[in-house]
């Protein structure tokens, strides 16, 4: 059983379990439709906030509305994808408290896939569609001299960003092995992180920007590569090639998150609940 094999097994299990949750949700069709639209509208309120701000000012930290919209669209889309894939991991703590986590451990498939697919909810497509709409509008209205590198960077940003957020979800969930009521800590970094990234880095303090660049590397979701695309200097004065590293950062995040998850699972299995 190599790593590759386990990955394939995990994806297969994820698909099977997510399918069951989708079918469960479909037994309440009306409720499903309502929550998809509700999700789209509620997540869209963040964007309304930005529009309201720009009705009073012309720029935010020196960034124009289309530029902020570009950051917003990237952040929300990337986060939306991660939220769809791993967004329910905060129920892990509940599962450990009520003992149902044990039932996952006696199944012949990877636990991470089971926990990730737990409570899989298609209503989260609402957030993704909203992000894609805003991003699309930003791409046509932003004042950028598009080069092939810049065009290529946009999908790279979305995918790498989604992977970075996934890693944060997994690492945050692993934290629940130590403190089973820690779901809110995880939410602070995921939901909190995406809200942060909806605004330009220049409106925040240097230390915070440093923190999400070198510590929890959320800045690689949109700030760093986005600054390059928009032709703006990154506040920390990083060299330009850094803009092309989001994929590498994403891979590194996955490896770290995987290690943290394993350590968490190991500690659960040696201490119990």
């Amino acid at each position, binding site marked *: 059983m190599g790593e590759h094999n386990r990955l394939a097994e995990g994806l297969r*299990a994820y698909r*099977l*379990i997510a399918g*069951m949750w989708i*079918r*469960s949700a479909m*037994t*309440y069709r009306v409720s499903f439709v309502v929550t998809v639209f509700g999700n789209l509208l509620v997540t869209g309120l963040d964007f309304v906030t930005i529009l309201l701000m720009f009705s009073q000012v012309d720029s935010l930290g020196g960034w124009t509305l289309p530029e902020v919209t570009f950051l917003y669209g990237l952040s929300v889309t990337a986060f939306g994808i991660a939220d769809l894939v791993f967004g329910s991991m905060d129920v892990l703590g509940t599962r450990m408290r*009520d*003992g*149902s986590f*044990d*039932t996952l*451990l*006696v*199944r*012949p*498939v*990877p636990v991470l896939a089971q926990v990730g697919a737990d409570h899989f909810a298609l209503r989260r497509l609402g957030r993704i569609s909203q992000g894609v709409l805003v991003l699309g509008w930003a791409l046509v209205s932003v004042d950028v001299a598009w080069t092939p590198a810049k065009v290529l960077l946009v999908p790279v940003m979305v995918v790498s960003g989604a992977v970075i957020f996934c890693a944060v979800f997994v690492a945050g969930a692993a934290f629940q092995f130590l403190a089973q009521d820690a779901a809110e800590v995880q939410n602070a970094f995921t939901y909190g992180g995406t809200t942060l990234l909806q605004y330009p880095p220049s409106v925040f303090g240097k230390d915070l920007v440093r923190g999400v660049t070198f510590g929890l590397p959320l800045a690689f979701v949109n700030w760093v590569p986005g600054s390059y695309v928009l032709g703006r200097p990154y506040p920390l004065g990083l060299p330009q090639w850094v803009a092309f590293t989001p994929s590498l950062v994403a891979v590194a995040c996955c490896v770290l998150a995987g290690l943290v998850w394993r350590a968490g699972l*190991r500690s659960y*299995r*040696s*201490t*119990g609940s």
Partner: protein
Amino acid sequence: MDTDTDAGTGTGSMDSGFIEVDGLEKVFDVRRKTGFMRRERRQVRAVDSISFSVARGEMVGYIGPNGAGKSTTIKMLTGILTPSGGRLRVAGIDPSRERTRLAHRIGVVFGQRTTLWWDLPLIDSYRLMHRMYRIPDGRYRENLDRLVELLGLADLLDVPVRQLSLGQRMRGDIAAALLHDPEVLYLDEPTIGLDVVSKARVREFLREVNTERGTTVLLTTHDLQDIEQLCSRVMVIDHGRLMYDGALAGLHEAGESERTLVVDLERELPPIDAPPPARVVKVDGPRQWLAFPASESAAPLVARIAAEYPLVDLSVREPDIEAVIAKMLHSLGDIPKPPSQRASA
């Protein structure tokens, strides 16, 4: 790894020790708040050097008071928890190290939490098992048909699980745990909360599975009748230690347990003059309660009362399991425990 026992996969060599437990231990670090930021660390021995072996096809009852270490043992046997010490093999597999491989060979039923899909028809949960465990199509259909027949699930397959009664759901859960032909079935309180009919049905089914497929069954229960009707062997655990391992009859002897004869007389009378060791323990109007040793037959006592008193009705109550265990533990309590075991670091 398996140099001492069960090196072969042939059935013959593994029969004696299908489940092998040797000096199994589980120590939990318990942190307790003693002040605002101060914590006290203490070690709790949930399972304290337990050893036993279960042969293929045995049906064993695993009983003990709450918090005795039953679930901790089961969790180690299924690979959910990693032991702190000792040796453990199920079908030649070290559960904690090869949890996913073991999962294909064991079935687990957690009495109070269902693994079925709440909002979906029962059959959907089985289809998921089919694919998750990669059960060959023919085998799956065969097993499903048999389980549906034995457990009376035919009319329930298309019903969403949330609409099933507790007894129906338990039967559904048991079927789900057996679809992949596990060699061992662990049941945690399989009859808890069920009515008499459902209990009887579950027991009858477990007996059938055991004889028909030779499935090894290990069950924890609070219901002495589960043990009486199913298990030839009982293991009693208390404070993490194995206190008794043997036949149920022996447990009664060790506990000197008593059965109760409830007698309804025609009218209120002074306590019945019963031959010792039987004695009247309670009188309430025309009804009287007599205790007598569980190892003796009730017949002579009943005959004598019927002959000498105006008898209207009577019934015999089996000792309840807690009482039997409590008595047994009490009588064993005089035996000094090995001094090294209880000390915590």
